[in-house]
């Protein structure tokens, strides 16, 4: 049963990724793209978690953790750029 759930999850998350990508390419505004990238990061975590359950391995926990961390600070860096241009001032 879990296997089925996992496969459904894969499909859904993949679809989610596709939607993010579409927004990423389409834009139109810079915040749109940043948002799309941010969501891409978070969805990737979902992907990793499902994958982890799928292969019954926890080795990708740190990866997920790091994606969360880097996705966040990446986003704020880009926002800072839009707001101030100079991100370290």
């Amino acid at each position, binding site marked *: 049963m879990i296997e089925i759930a996992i496969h459904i999850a894969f499909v859904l998350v993949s679809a989610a990724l596709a939607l993010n990508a579409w927004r990423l390419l389409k834009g139109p505004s810079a915040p749109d793209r940043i948002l799309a990238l941010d969501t891409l990061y978070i969805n*990737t975590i979902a992907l990793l978690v499902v994958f982890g359950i799928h292969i019954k391995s926890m080795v990708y926990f740190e*990866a997920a953790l790091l994606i969360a961390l*880097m996705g966040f600070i990446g986003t704020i860096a880009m926002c800072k750029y839009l707001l101030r241009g*100079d991100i*370290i001032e």
Partner: protein
Amino acid sequence: MGLAYLTLVPFFGAILTKLSTRLGRYSSAWVAILSATLSLFLLWPLAIQVWQGETIIQRIGPWLPELGIDLAFRLDGLSLLFSLMILLVGLIVVIYARYYLSPRDSMGRFYAYLLLFMGSMLGVVLSENIIQLLMFWELTSLSSFLLISYWQQREEASRGARMALTITGGGGLAMLGGFLLLGNMAGSYDLSDILLAGDAIRSHEHYSSMLLLILLGVFTKSAQFPFHFWLPNAMAAPTPVSAYLHSATMVKAGIFLLARLFPALAGTPEWTWIVSGIGIVTFLTGSYIALFKHDMKALLAYSTISHLGLIVALFGIGTPLAVVAGVFHIINHATFKASLFMLAGIVDHETGTRDMRQLRGLRRYMPYTAALMVIAAAAMAGIPGLNGFVSKEMFLEQVVVYGDTFAPSWLLPAIVTAGAVFSAAYSIRIAHNVFFGGEPADLPKAPHDPSSGMQIPVAILVAACVVVGLFPAIAQPLVTLVAGSALQSAPPAFHLAIWHGLTPALWMSAVALAGGILVYRQREAFFSLQSLVDGRIDAKIIYNGVMRRLFAWSSAITMNADNLSQKRMLWILFVTAIVLGGYGFLSGGGPLAGNRAMLPVDPMSAMVAIIMMAAALATVIMHQQRFTALILVSAVGLGVALTFVKFSAPDLALTQLAVEFITAVLLLLALFFLPQATPDEQDRLRQARDIVIAVFSGLGIAALSYAVLTREYETIADYFIANSVSGGGGANVVNVLLVDFRGFDTMGEITVLALAGLGIYAMLDQLKLLSPKQDAEGRPWNPDTHPLILATFSRILLPLAMLVAVFILLRGHNLPGGGFIAGLITSAALIVQYLANGVEWTRSKLPANTHPLIGYGLLTAASTGVASWYFGYPFLTSTFEHVHLPLLGEFELASAMAFDIGVFLVVVGTSLLILINLGMIHQVSYLPRIGKNTGGKEPKPARAAAIDKAEKTTTKKQEDMPWKR
């Protein structure tokens, strides 16, 4: 050893003269005289032996034994004759120059160069090994370059010198090729072997190319047509130099070589045709042009050319008697031509000009000079009773004999006679034109006979002309000896005499003389005739033209080649790679796909891959909107990390993610100062080219990767998996590889990182950038410098991130993680502090200059490596221990961890150094604040001061710096 010494004496003399200049102006002259005489003195005993028919060969010993170059000297008749000429004429010239040179000229330099040349010339004629000979040969070119350009400030001097060097030096290089082949044919570079190997050489397949190369050397040196033109231009040299180099010695070096190698090379049709042909052409052209030269020295130069041609022709004809005649004419020409040069020098010296259009009737003012000149000129013209006549007769005779060998038999004698007519004419001119006729017109100086010091040397030589001319027989033994050694066999019976009966040769001379007088009388007509072609078919002009074009073309090619276009460099590199790689792949054969079982494609991977491709292509397409492109690239980066996850590389995923962020921050920082958009590139054609290149590169790499991925392979990897835990003390094989198996890679890697940090720091050092006041659309920046929410949460983030970093660092050895990733996380967390709270605020809590961090990191890593020496193991050998602490449980302590901590420190240090300093490029505006606490000291350069300040604050609150604890 004698020969070696007498060759070296002039070289030492040269050094001495340079030193002796402080001892007074003429001391150098004395040194020169002494060294010449000393060499003569050393030559004497050996000369006697040679006179008795010996050939002396002295081996100094091996120098480059593997290459068959041993220093060895050889003295036989031929080399004796030349060394005598070199030393005797040299001595005379030295004395002459002592009086000739004006007080302005540096005697020391002159004699140094002259002796340098003398030594090199001796080396040429005395060498047994032809490579050694070649070395001295090129040395003569170099020293003559120095002598010709003696009056450096005169442009024609340095130009003439360069021309001479180019021609003769080039010839020498050709000769190097020739000698290599020759040595190869003879199996040795020693003359004694080569001279015996004549038949082997002549029958060798490369004979003709070898001959050509060597003859190039000969003809350039001896100013044979078409290389003759350098000689007249070398007349910019002081007269003593011309007298020495351009009559007696250097130009004869070519002749010497002809004679020297005669037994080995001569006797083939190639030899005969080329050598005699060139000789006769030179003889004719030389004597013809000489007539039209108004400068005495120029006239003599061309006459020298023509006489050299004569001698060359004789060796070309190549009959034993011809060789005898050649040898004899060498001697005669040396004597009368040297004296003529010196006489011209005297005239120049006394009247201040050498222009025969000004000079006339000097006999009243300088009778002795006139007398000497008349005799010497007569010798050159070949008037009976003088040495010139005797050898010329022999030449004409040979020409007649040789002329019979092909039809029409009158042709060759006719040509030669024509040449003889002109040489008679210019000989008459140089004597009559200068010393007879009306009063000299407006001369720069009032002419009178020179000091005896200048006249006696000439007189000696002229006397020699007369004596030999009247009693040729005295020259017989010398000529016999020389000819013998040149032929390497007993010369045929001959006797030198004035009267041989009414031979055709005699008639030819008579005709020549008569014609000469006639031509001289009608010279004006000839001059006007010549003036029509003047400057059109002049070899010098052609040479200069060639040179000019050579330089022009070269600079065109060069400019075109390195026009500093990065694009070009790159696309050439890519194309080369594609071509070679493609060639290798195709030439090797084999199918594209291997037979390894392939993995199925699951929808998720497909999706990720497609997204990555899309993002990548979008990056390329939208690269002109830079910020967008930047976002897209980060998406690709995320995809890369995912790929690493998918294919079992957690460590790589972590690293990729961390690097991704820091790179993005870097790009953002850069983007702030760079234009927001890339202008469109007009050149569509180039764009198309780039697309083609890109596509091919992509295809190539894709093919390679596909080919490898579908093939099985055996790898050393199992060893690592087997030994990771037992030998490396870590379960995470990748980490063990990084800190242990291949720890040295990591050592280099962190050095690279540190270097990047240092380099960037250095680049930013004086870098000042004005920050744009508004964004690309012209909107002013948002006034809220540090959004509250961000500021607040960034602070909560810090301890968490640090905890995570420690977590990643400590577990790295057994689970995904390690120093590098931990370092990146730490710096990321700290960067967020800068991001959220600003540089100045953060810098008051963190050092902006993290050099020490980098240093300590490297030190830790490297010392961990060296520590293993103490235990007698190689660099970087790791060790680990499982320690059991009561109630805390078991810990593993591995030396590798120390190494990893080193890595950690370097990473933190570098990434902070880079980002913070990059963030502070425009810190100027913040300086006042810092100036306040620096106690009003004027900080410069601004940024450096800012950093020092930062260091101060940090050293103040050192206990706050984790790495200080």
